[in-house]
């Protein structure tokens, strides 16, 4: 028997709302399965489980908001029949799955994030109350478009109560919005709802999620709290280096001619790869400052800063970026962007980044003075790739260049190391065929 806890999905998360269970008691789960959907104040995140077993009991009902570290479910050991004689055969290592040490680290981060918040492991109210009967939302899932489901979630509308006007009675976004207007309560649903609504209360009344406006406010609050902590705790130092990007761009354009539309590369794929490979050579840039000491990470999981439409920012992990080809990086980033905007990131992506990259070049600025995501110790920024005057070999010419910046934690290292790190990134971008 073990408890499945509300994970910390980033250092800024103190609590999460359990929006939806994807499993029922009795379900067999294996490491890496997505078992629930949780609303942090920044996004809806799909939560993975980190062990094999059988869901024994769900402890937290849908709609409840609970602190990080709260037991969400009881998981018992896998059925004997499901386990091979050799446990190693059951737990076949999958390439992209975070390793045990990282899971432990994530747990440590959970502790770090919860420090100062409610004690992570005490949730007596939650444990005492039986889960309310589940709404038969599953019955409606096939009949509501994803957009409608999202709107329902944002507006706090129960899909079961919505009349669909689409084909075969499918629920469309407009239907949800109509229902939301019709049933708008006099008072907005409180964001900090009590963890559990008593079972006798109709669960339909449970404040499920937040409106788009609330979401904006919550996201600003979460970003503000995290960045304030970063600026308060981390003695940043900043470096910048202008990098000749002509070799990379020439290589990229030639390479893209051979590629189908779907497989074309963007310059950002080269930038990410160059950082990931530099991080392998300089482990002191890739890891966490925890409990007064630097802990190098076991893999390079690049946090990719993604701006959300309508405002806000999220930086999920591109796992094992140093071992990915450019194609894999492109696919990975595209997938992350789409899921970040659709609000479907996974828990490991939220808790794993080991160093973050922000690329504001598309917005036209020359350079970024980054703010480090605690407990990481470094953030690499890229500005616009632009044609600039460039002196080389005693000649003045015009070349596409990009200004790379580094914001790094002075507790973990000094400018000497940081400057080597930036020059490694520069070197990598001069050898695009090696990326």
């Amino acid at each position: 028997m073990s408890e499945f806890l509300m994970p910390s999905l980033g250092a800024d998360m103190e609590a999460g709302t359990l929006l939806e269970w994807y499993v029922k008691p009795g379900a067999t789960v294996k490491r890496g399965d997505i078992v629930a959907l949780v609303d942090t104040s920044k996004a809806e995140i799909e939560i993975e489980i980190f062990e094999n077993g059988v869901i024994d009991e769900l402890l937290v009902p849908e709609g409840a908001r609970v602190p990080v570290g709260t037991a969400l479910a009881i998981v018992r050991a896998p059925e004997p029949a499901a386990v091979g004689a050799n446990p190693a055969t059951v737990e076949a290592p999958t390439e992209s799955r975070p390793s045990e040490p990282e899971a432990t680290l994530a747990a440590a981060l959970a502790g770090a994030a919860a420090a100062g918040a409610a004690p992570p492991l005490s949730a007596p109210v939650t444990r005492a109350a039986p889960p309310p009967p589940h709404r038969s939302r599953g019955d409606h899932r096939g009949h509501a478009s994803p957009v409608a489901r999202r709107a329902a979630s944002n507006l706090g509308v129960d899909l079961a109560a919505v009349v669909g006007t689409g084909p075969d009675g499918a629920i469309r976004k407009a239907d949800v919005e109509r229902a939301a207007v019709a049933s708008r309560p006099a008072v907005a649903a409180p964001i900090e709802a009590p963890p559990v609504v008593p079972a006798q209360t109709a669960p339909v009344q449970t404040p499920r999620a937040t409106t788009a406006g609330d979401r904006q406010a919550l996201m600003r609050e979460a970003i503000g709290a995290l960045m304030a902590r970063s600026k308060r705790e981390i003695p940043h130092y900043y470096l910048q280096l202008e990098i000749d990007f002509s070799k990379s761009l020439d290589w990229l354009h030639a390479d893209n001619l051979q590629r189908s539309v779907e497989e074309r590369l963007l310059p950002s794929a080269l930038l990410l790869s160059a950082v990931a490979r530099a991080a392998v050579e300089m482990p002191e840039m890739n890891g966490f400052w925890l409990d007064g000491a630097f802990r190098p990470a076991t893999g390079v999981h690049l946090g990719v800063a993604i701006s959300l439409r309508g405002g806000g920012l999220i930086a999920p992990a591109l796992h094992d970026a140093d071992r990915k080809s450019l194609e894999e990086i492109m696919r990975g980033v595209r997938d992350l962007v789409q899921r970040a905007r659709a609000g479907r990131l996974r828990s490991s992506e939220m808790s794993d980044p080991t160093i973050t990259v922000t690329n504001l070049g598309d917005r036209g600025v020359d350079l970024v003075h980054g703010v480090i995501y605690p407990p990481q110790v470094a953030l690499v920024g890229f500005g616009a790739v632009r044609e600039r005057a460039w002196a080389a070999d005693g000649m003045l010419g015009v070349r596409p260049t990009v200004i790379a910046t580094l914001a790094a934690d002075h507790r973990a290292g000094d400018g000497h190391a940081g400057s080597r790190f930036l020059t490694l990134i520069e070197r990598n971008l001069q050898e695009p065929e090696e990326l």
Partner: protein
Amino acid sequence: MTTEQELTAVVIGAVTEIAPDVDPHAIDPDADLADQLDIDSMDFLNIVVAIHDRTGIEIPERDYPKLGTLNDAISYLATAQRQGAGA
């Protein structure tokens, strides 16, 4: 052959797929799409892919600047289609 109206629907469909919050009627057909709709290079690539999926027109990278505005994009696609059909 797809009519200009259908091409317009294709481009708007591709754009709103990437940027679902955009009101198609609010798009200024002669203003830069990226500036107007806050589209970055990844979004733009996804739009190019979506247009390819729907029309079969493969837009080479060097032609990206010719798709700056909605009207530019539609006339580019109409031309590309005529040339493709004539070849």
